[in-house]
Structure formats: structure tokens, C-alpha cells
């Protein structure tokens, strides 16, 4: 592994790992709160938000994207409430309709707009463009100490790293109230934890992860990162602290294995082209979950009759 690896694979790999971890951390709490599909919803709403932000500003950069995604989320919430009241439909159906419609509108907008100059087209929006986030100016491992080369690292890496560090810090700082309110919301409220604000904060954190991971894995596959590593981790342990560590390990494993298999797997099988790294990462995370379901030590629900 030399120059080529550093140039072509190091940054996509790092971005993939960071994206997977950034999504897996809030995913642990979303799953335990039975809100896993919020991640799905967010990942759908992110797309039209980002496209509109791009159309308005003409550039792909962090703040317009985040604001666009946040704006789309607000529109989604208002629409859901309106449909629920006017149409007298149950909330789940209203959510499903709004998120898929917004996502479809995002796809249409994207098709019709001129995005040839930037990495924004339907395919990338769905599956991400991990492979294209390469480090042109790298000349080998030595470039890691070369300020000029470091400055030319893809900006997506810094964005993803910042998001991952922020989410990691938030998880540590708010660990206790998050755990307590996830387990027992009533008691959490009675000891003065602002549970509604905390729930909202968790959803916003998940949205930040989804927007940041958009480049790496696209808006569809991000849902696998929210759910698969934490769900597999839950089957490995009966302690939340350890579950979160397992989820980080599984997220990392999915990213590394998925990236390597996507790049080299088809060659090993005699095919010519590599396959989508994001697609392979999601597939690997699904396989890890499947293996955990079959072999993990705590795969049976606690309290279930033995042998059941």
C-alpha cells in the first residue's frame, strides 16, 4: 500500500468511517426510543432541502446545505400536521406521504436543474460519491506531514470529521440525561430533565449526521448507518455503554470492509468494474446485523423463555 492507496483510498475510507460513526451514535438512542424511522424520514427530507439550497446559492457548501435541510424539515413537519388535521389521516400515514413526496420532489428538482459543474446529480444523491473524494495532491504517506498537501484534502473530510467529533462530544456530555430519558421519560421529567428539548436535540443531531454523511453515502443509504450498527450492537451486550462502543466498532467495520469489497471484490470475482462503495458499506452493515441475529450472545430477548 503506497502512493496509490493514500491518493485514492485513504480519504474515502476515512470519510466512510466517520460518516458511519456519526450516524451510528444517535442511531443507538433512536432505536431504543423506537424512533428508528425518524432517521429514514430525515434522510428523505434532506434531499429536497439540499437541492433547493443549491439552486438558491449555486454552491455546495456546508451552511446552505444544513439550512436547506433544516428548512425542509420544518416544511415537512408543518405538512404532516396539516395533512393529519385536514385529511384526518393517522400520523404514520401522513409522515409516509410527506417524506416520500418531498423526496420525489427533490429528485425531480435535481433532474431539471443544471448541476453539471458540481457533484450533485440523482445518482450521487441516492448512493453518495465516496470514490470521488480523492486526495489529488498526495504523493504517499509522507503527504500526511506536508502542510501544502494537507490543505488540499477534500473539504468533505473536514466537514465529516467536524460532524463526527461534534456528535461524539454531544453523546458524551449528554450521556446521562439521554440514557435516563430514553429509559424512563416520566422519571427524567420528574428530576428536571427537559425531555422534550432533549428529544428534539437528538433528532437535530441525527439530521446533522445525515446532512454531513450525504456526500459520503447518499441520502438513501444513510438510513442503514443509523440502524444496522446499533441494532447489531444491541445483540452483543446488555449494557448501553458497551452497546455504543460495539456500534462504533460495527460502523467502522462496515465502512472499511464495504469500501475494500466494493473496490476489489468485483476484481477478485473476475469482473472489470468496482461497485458503489456506499452500496457495499450498507450491504456489509446489513450482513453484520444478520450475523449478529444468528450468533450474538444476547440475541434472544431478555426474559424470553429459555430455548424460545
Amino acid at each position, binding site marked *: 500500500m503506497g502512493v496509490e492507496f493514500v491518493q485514492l483510498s485513504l480519504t474515502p475510507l476515512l470519510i466512510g468511517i466517520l460518516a458511519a460513526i456519526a450516524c451510528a451514535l444517535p442511531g443507538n438512542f433512536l432505536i*431504543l426510543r423506537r424512533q428508528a424511522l425518524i432517521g429514514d424520514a430525515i434522510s428523505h427530507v434532506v434531499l429536497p432541502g439540499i437541492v433547493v439550497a443549491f439552486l438558491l446559492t449555486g454552491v455546495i457548501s456546508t451552511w446552505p446545505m444544513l439550512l436547506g435541510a433544516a428548512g425542509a424539515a420544518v416544511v415537512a413537519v408543518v405538512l404532516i400536521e396539516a395533512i393529519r388535521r385536514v385529511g384526518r389521516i393517522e400520523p404514520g400515514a401522513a409522515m409516509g406521504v410527506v417524506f416520500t413526496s418531498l423526496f420525489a420532489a427533490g429528485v425531480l428538482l435535481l433532474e431539471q436543474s443544471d448541476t453539471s459543474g458540481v457533484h450533485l446529480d440523482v445518482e450521487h444523491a441516492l448512493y453518495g460519491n465516496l470514490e470521488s473524494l480523492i486526495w489529488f495532491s498526495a504523493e504517499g504517506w509522507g503527504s500526511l506531514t506536508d502542510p501544502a498537501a494537507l490543505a488540499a484534502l477534500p473539504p468533505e473530510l473536514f466537514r465529516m470529521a467536524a460532524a463526527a467529533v461534534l456528535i461524539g462530544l454531544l453523546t458524551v*456530555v*449528554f*450521556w*446521562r*440525561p439521554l*440514557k*435516563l430519558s*430514553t*429509559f*424512563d421519560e*416520566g*422519571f427524567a*421529567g*420528574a*428530576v*428536571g*430533565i427537559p425531555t422534550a428539548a432533549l428529544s428534539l436535540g437528538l433528532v437535530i443531531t441525527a439530521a446533522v449526521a445525515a446532512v454531513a454523511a450525504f456526500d459520503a453515502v447518499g441520502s438513501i443509504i444513510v438510513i442503514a448507518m443509523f440502524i444496522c450498527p446499533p441494532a447489531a450492537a*444491541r445483540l452483543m*451486550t*446488555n*449494557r*448501553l455503554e458497551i*452497546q455504543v462502543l460495539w456500534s462504533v466498532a460495527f460502523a467502522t467495520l462496515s465502512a472499511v470492509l464495504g469500501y475494500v469489497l466494493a473496490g476489489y471484490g468485483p476484481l477478485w470475482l473476475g469482473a472489470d468494474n468496482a461497485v458503489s462503495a456506499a452500496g457495499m458499506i450498507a450491504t456489509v452493515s446489513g450482513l453484520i446485523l444478520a450475523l449478529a441475529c444468528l450468533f450474538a450472545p444476547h440475541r434472544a*430477548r*431478555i*426474559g424470553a423463555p429459555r430455548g424460545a
Partner: protein
Amino acid sequence: MNNAALELASEAGERVFRPAPTDSPLAMQELTVSYGEKPAVFSIDATVPAESMTAIIGPNGAGKSTLLKAALGIVPRLSGRVMVFGAPLAQVMHRIAYVPQRASVDWDFPTRVIDVVLMGLYRELGLLHLVRHHHRERAIACLERVGMADFADRQIGQLSGGQQQRVFLARALAQNAELYLLDEPFAGVDAATEKAIIDVLKSLKAEKRTVVCVHHDLATVTDYFDHVLLINVRKIAEGPVATTFTAENLQKTYGGRLATAHIDQLKLPAA
């Protein structure tokens, strides 16, 4: 405000509250809570005496749990006022311990018994203080009081219903409060657990703390409690068990849902 001023304000159509007795651990005035269009709890006045054991009694859907949650500020009040030790709730939260209904949480949650009890120290530990040896010892001592110390390292899903209820009580003990609010602590527990819980509650009373339980078992009211609040959305009656827990009041509270024959079998206070 003196009484004359109160009368004036009252005549002017202003909403006024008479000052609550400051010694009461929990006083509610015209408390109304509504989830939808129909109020779950309507204009309830109640004053829990200090160092008492008070039962909140009423049929299903009478708003008993809602009343408790509104007193704790977990569900929003539509109107009315709650005073705890004569002060607004926000100032005295640390003096209240709460035991929610056992069925309100997912017992498959990945955590151990000791971790649940340590949650009772949340106000002390805050966001970032480390759990030290003395915190852990206090949690174990609370588990000992409910006879669950041997289960400290078990996953909570491995416990029976009665054991889960005792762990919840241990967490409330860790809060080391002066007012204990419990939501159906005896619901669906075995006889040994019921005995263990009532013993702990009576020892709390002996330590000059106040205990308020949402309670469903009419047969044990006279044995366990000294004060009752009978509600069915509205307040029906409130007072000492000896004078308030009467066949007449029960009939008013439960309406046709409680046959007279059933009331006759109850152990009512000797009139």
C-alpha cells in the same frame, strides 16, 4: 394578599388562589389537566398533610396518574396551581421522589439494576460527575432496603414484575426526598413484594417523610393509609381514612361500577 383584597380581586373576575397552607408537602388548587377536548382531571383541590400516607383512589380513567404527573410537572396543567412545601415546583424538585408505573418503561432496555438505582442520584451527579465508590455504596444500601442487593449486576429484563417494582422503589430511595409520589406501586406484584414495599413506605413515614400513592386495591386502604383522596375526574372527597373512606363516598366515586355488595365486604373504618 389579605382576605379583603382576595374578595375584591375575586369580584373583579380575576382568578385568585387562596394561599396554600405552607406546611403541606403537596397542595393542589383548582388543578385541571386535559389531553384532548375532555379534561382528564377537573378543578381538583387537595392538601396532603405532612408526614401522612395518602392514597389517591378512583376508578380506571379517573385521572389518578394524570393528577400525580401534573403535580410533578411531567404533564402540563391547563389551569390551577401546585405548591410543594409551599413553593413552586421548580424550586423544590430535589425534595420529591417519583416512582412511575412499572409498565411505563421498556424492561428490555440495556442496563443493570445498579444503573437504574444510580439514576436516582441524577440531580447530584449532573451531566459529568463520575460515579464514585460512595455513590455506588448508597445505591447498594437502597437496594438492600428493598431486599434486592443480590441483584445489583443483573440486567433489568431478568427480573420478575415484583423485583422490577422494588428496583423502582430503590431508585426513589436513592433520591433521598421528603415527598414520595408513587404510581400504583402494588399493581401486579407478588405478596412478598407487597409486604416489602409497604414496610419501606411505613419506615419512610416513620422518618417523617410524606408518601402519596395512586392505589387501586380498596381492600388494603385502611391498613396501609391514613389519608385518602377520592377522585373521578373531579374530586369526590378528601380527608382522613377514618372519616372519608366510607361506603357513601365510594359509591359516589365509583358510581354503578362498584356494587353495594362489594362495598359491604370491604374493611371500612369503624364508624
